[in-house]
Structure formats: structure tokens, C-alpha cells
């Protein structure tokens, strides 16, 4: 089981490394969307600092959703997904491996680049650390929940738009507490409650989302 998991991780990584542009798209999207806000709203740094947590979180959410379409699509087209389903290994584990790599390649870069964007929007050092931490806990939840939606909309016409309709409502709690933690930090209030809830979302979705996504794939490939 571990050998198969290791093989899957290696496979996903090498596939991603051969399509670097796709990996970079989500990151560039994140940077560009965040940079649009000062252009649209105006360069007053106080206003920007105030909206920074929300802007960064919404942009991260959209960027991670943008790449969800690709999560299973290629494997679905070339038949790999069917092989994964009929393999003797638990499908949820394999799906978890795919989600993990998806997060490492799209979620983690967002976390790493967020301090620069935070500084651009005039956030102070402490809030930026909180922002990075919330993104570090929050973006895996986005990938996990998103995988269920990606599985459900696989091969459905108009899947991309439908995916956002299904997934965005479920993203809202993560957004509220992720951005809320950064706002509390900026206001000098405690952030433990937000972090507890975000961690609870992560724990819950770590357990349930791979099972849900596996069930969704079985339905889609029935």
C-alpha cells in the first residue's frame, strides 16, 4: 500500500514537473488578482491594509479553485483513473495522494508568496505571519473540499462553472475564519478561536474529503 502511494506521489510530481506552466498559472493568477485591487481601489495604504486579509484570502480561494478542474481531468481522459479505481488499493488513499500533490503544487506556493503580497498591501510583520499560518492551514482544506466537487463534475458538460457553484458555498466558512484571523491579528485581538476552527476544518476534511472524493469518482466513472 505504501509502495503504491509512493509510486503515485512520484508519478504526480514528475507529471507536474513536465507541465510547469500549469503549476505556475495558479500562482500567477493569485499575484495578478491581488495586484489588481490597488489599481481598482486606489493606492491609499490605509484602505489597502484594511482590506488586505480579505483580498488575499479571496484571491487564494479563486486561485486554488482555478486549478481544481485539472485534478482528475487528465487521468480521466487517458484512462488512468479507471485503473486506479479497479486497483486493489483503497481508492481514498490514492485520491488523498493526488490531493496532497495538488496542494503542494498549487496551495503551498500561494502560502510562500503571500508575505510579499501582504507587504505590497501594507500589512505589518505580525499580521503577515498570521496570514501565512492561516493560509497554511486553510489551503489544504480548499484542495480537499475541492476534490469532492472535482470528482462530482468530472466529465459533466459545463463542469468548470458548475464546479465553482458547488464548491464556493462550501469554501465560505474557511474564508470567514481565515480572513477573520488575520483581521483579528491586525486589530490586536486573540486569534486562537479562529485557528482552532480552521484546524477543525482541516482535521475533518482530511478524514472525510478523500472518502467523499473517492465516492464521487466511483459515481462519475460508473
Amino acid at each position, binding site marked *: 500500500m505504501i509502495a503504491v502511494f509512493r509510486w503515485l506521489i512520484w508519478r504526480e510530481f514528475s507529471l507536474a514537473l513536465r507541465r510547469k506552466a500549469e503549476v505556475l498559472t495558479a500562482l500567477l493568477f493569485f499575484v495578478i488578482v491581488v495586484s489588481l485591487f490597488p489599481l481598482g481601489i486606489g493606492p491609499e495604504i490605509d484602505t489597502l491594509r484594511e482590506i488586505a486579509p480579505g483580498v488575499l484570502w479571496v484571491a487564494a480561494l479563486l486561485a486554488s479553485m482555478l486549478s481544481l478542474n485539472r485534478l482528475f481531468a487528465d487521468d480521466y481522459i487517458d484512462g488512468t483513473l479507471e485503473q486506479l479505481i479497479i486497483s486493489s488499493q483503497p481508492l481514498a488513499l490514492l485520491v488523498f495522494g493526488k490531493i496532497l500533490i495538488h496542494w503542494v503544487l498549487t496551495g503551498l506556493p500561494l502560502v510562500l508568496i503571500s508575505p510579499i503580497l501582504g507587504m505590497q498591501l501594507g500589512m505589518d510583520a505580525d499580521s503577515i505571519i498570521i496570514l501565512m499560518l492561516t493560509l497554511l492551514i486553510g489551503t489544504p482544506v480548499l484542495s480537499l*473540499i475541492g476534490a469532492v466537487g472535482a470528482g*462530482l463534475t468530472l466529465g459533466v458538460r459545463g463542469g468548470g462553472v*458548475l464546479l465553482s457553484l*458547488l464548491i464556493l458555498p*462550501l469554501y*465560505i466558512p474557511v474564508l470567514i475564519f481565515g480572513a477573520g484571523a488575520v483581521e483579528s491579528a491586525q486589530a490586536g485581538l486573540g486569534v486562537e478561536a479562529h485557528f482552532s476552527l480552521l484546524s477543525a476544518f482541516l482535521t475533518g476534511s482530511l478524514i472525510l474529503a478523500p472518502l467523499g472524493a473517492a*465516492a464521487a469518482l466511483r459515481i462519475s466513472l460508473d
Partner: protein
Amino acid sequence: MNFFTKAFWLQFSSPKTFYPVAGKLIPVFMTVTIVLTFIGLYYGFVLAPPDYQQGDSYRIMFIHVPAAWMSMWIYIVMCIFAIIGMVWRTRLSDMMAGALAPTGAMFAFLALWTGALWGKPTWGTYWVWDARLTSELILLFLYFGFIALRAAIDDPQRAARASALLACVGVINVPIIYFSVKWWNTLHQGASVGLTQKATMADSMLTAMMVMSFAFWAYTFAVAFMRVRNEILEREKNSAWVAETFSQKEGGSK
């Protein structure tokens, strides 16, 4: 006919048996809806005293609160039907889940709309990003997602199972809405009606609210049965019993 045997109840899971039964029940539920709505609104608009703070503007609560209750209940009932359909592969349960969704979405919208109309004179604003309002809005989006996913998948069996899974994921939101006024102390006030304590309102107000929610339940059943009957005909249009039913009707000997 024994009402207490399993076989008696199970026969209604067959579309063929359910179709005429639903047809007979629709007028009953519709009558109940109309009668209860009149009673409820009479209690609410005439008998219930004006609120000492809000005057008469609170009276929209007799629509708002039952609609909000219904929007949550219908989601749960829809989810239960979806799970039954997924576990036992009964076609009718899935059709019921699909038939309930538009009504649930309508009630969620109605709750938000009436809430906005009430909020303007009372809170001074149509909309605030309060925990309960936001989670009710999410519920409306979840209904839309459920309806859109069913509409996007052509194969009814696959649509049934996919939407069932989605309904189960989304049902997490329902307790969040219900307890949001307790968990986050934001603008929306706490519940005035509960099982554990005495309702903090006049009896006539409570009566109006209860009667209205029963009226909404009856309405929900009536329209859901109408949709299910259409769905049954749509899916079973090639079967013998549908042809038989309609040839009899045309012959005038229903």
C-alpha cells in the same frame, strides 16, 4: 389492508403505486394549505397584538420564521431521501429529493427576502453580514448547486447518486445556520421559540407562527408531489401502466 405491515408502506416506493396516491393527496394538501394560511394570517394580522417595540412591522415574522424553518427542514428531508435513494436504489426517493429542492430554494429565498424587508425598518438596513444571514445565503447557494448538478447530468441514475453525495456534504451547513445565533453573537436575535423553554411571545403570535409552518409543510408536500408525478411520467413514459392510465382517462372511465 393492514397499515402496520412493512409491505403496506413499501408498496408506495413503486412509482406505479405512488402516482395515483400522490394525485389524490395533492388536492388534500392544497386545501389544507389554503385553509391554514387563512387561519394563520388571520391570527397573525388580526388577533396578534402589535409588538411593544416594533409596532406592526414584526408581523412579517409569520412568513419569515416558518419559511426559514422550512428551508432548513426541506434540506434535511431532501438529504434523507437522497441517502435512502443511494442506499436502497429506490427511484422514487431520488425523485422526491429532486422535487423538494426547488421548494427549499424558494423558502430560503423567501426567508432572506422577508428578512430584508423586516430588517430595513428594524435594524435600519436590508442586509448585514451577520452569521445567520450569511449561512442562510449559503443554504440558498447549496440548493442552487444541487439543482444545477442534477440538471447537468443526463443519466438519471448518475445524477441521483452525484446529487445525493453533494446533499450529504452540504447538510453540514444546516446545524451551523440553526446554532449561528448562539455561536456568534451578531445582529440576528436568538430564537424565541424552542422545545426546551417557554416561547417568549404572546400565545396568539405563537399560534400564528405554528399554523403558518403547518401550512408551509402542506404546501411543500403538494408541490413536491406534483413535481414527482411529472418526473414519474417523464421517466416511465414508455411503460405499460402509463399508457394504460392515460388511455383510461381518455375513455372517460377513470
